[in-house]
């Protein structure tokens, strides 16, 4: 019985560790999403700049 109780205690500890790991995982995933969003923002900014430059050059070419 004692052994079983010990095992149960271990099981509970392991479950706690698992929940902690899940929380860490959620935090890391959230930070990853934020990073990805910032990368997407920078890329869109670049795209807008490219459109602007190409648009002006195109107008010059047409003129």
């Amino acid at each position, binding site marked *: *019985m004692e*052994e*079983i109780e010990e*095992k*149960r205690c*271990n*099981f509970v500890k*392991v*479950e706690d*560790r*698992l929940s902690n*790991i*899940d929380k*860490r*995982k959620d935090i*890391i*995933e959230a*930070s*990853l999403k934020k*990073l*990805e969003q*910032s*990368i997407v923002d*920078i*890329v869109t*900014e*670049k795209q807008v*700049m*490219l*459109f602007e*430059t*190409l*648009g002006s*050059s*195109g107008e*010059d*070419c*047409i003129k």
Partner: protein
Amino acid sequence: MLLLPKVDTLKESMRQTINEIKTSAESSIIEAANASKNNLNRWRVTFQKEKAELHAESATKIESLTSELKEFYGKKENDAVRLNEETIRQKLEKQHTDDFEKKLKVERDVYRRLEADFKVARKLWIKERASLKDEGQRSMLILEEKLKQQAKAFEIKQIKSQEEVEERVSEERSCVIVCFSRIEVINGHFHFMKVFRELQEQQIRIEDRYSITINNLKDKYKVNQRNELEKEKAKLEEKWKKVVSKNSEKASQELEKLSMELENCEKQLVGSHRSTRSMKEKFEASIEDKALLEKSMGFVQKNLSFLHLRSLVGYMIERQKEKSRKETEFANYEYKIKVLEQKYMEEIEHISRGNDSTKKESRKLAKTLKLVRNIIVGHKSEDLQKMRRRCVEISEVLAEVEKEGKAIKKKRDLSGKEIDKMQDNLRKLEDQIQAHSKTSAVQNGRINMSHARKKRKLDEE
């Protein structure tokens, strides 16, 4: 108390009117946007069709021209090889260059047509955009005016509901601005960039073809001109040599002839002199004969000098005539060489002008390319790299965490299984103890030792 229901009714009426205005504005903007999109799509489809048709026509024409040229050039080349005449080859090369120029002209015409189409399309697009903008601005102004009027009325009637009205007005404005910005972004960048990219690609292709053909033509023209100049120079030198040799031969022959004639004359004169001498010796005695003889001698000498002078004058006149003829021929050849040099220089200038224009265009394109490269490579690239590195690090940490989680899950499953097994064993033992406790330790008035031992063992377990 009497005013409260009126205020409520007024509020409701205001809400209804604002909602109606909002829905009408949204519907009008959406309709206008849809109409403009449809127009743009139609125009895009027609433009693409026309462009594809033009492309196909130009490609087929170029192919047919090249095939015809190749056939023609091959036939003519064979003829030239058979006949072994350089003049025919030169003619063929000229025809080839003319055909190439025609092809270039056709390509330039196609490119100009495309440019004109693009300009027309761009004008249409600008007009449509301007009309949309005007419509949007008008509707916005109308909306603003209506809202202002309503707000004023509402301010007079209800001071409390002013904040709500202002908030709604701001919401309406933001909605309208967002709609406009979307329409502008959609209409502006999307379509223009597509068309412009396509045209840029086309322009680059045509420029490449143009530069290749121009270089080929330039090289061919230079080689032809050099060959022609060298040939003409060689011909002129040969002619000059021939003329000089002929003239020298003629002069020498004429000199020889004249010298022969002079010698003959001298011989005749010597003979006549001898005969006169003999006559003089014979008729020395008579003075009259002597005088006659002296007269005849003077006459002969005069004749001799006259003949000599005549021959010298004729030779000099002929020499002068030949000299003048040669000078005129030389002047003609010099004039021809000058004309050819001028033509060659004009062609070189024309080609250099064409090269300058293409260089300017290429510089412009290179500038835009540099800008694009700077934007792609330079703009916030360090931040991007840092973010990517951070992403990689975080993903690695995530993978480690997932690994840990998997290991802990495995541990949990194993411990759960062990607990289940242990619980099963416990249950079995409890069952056995219960079953054993049901049987009595005393059998036939004696204590069963094996029963007691088993009980002890089970308890221990």
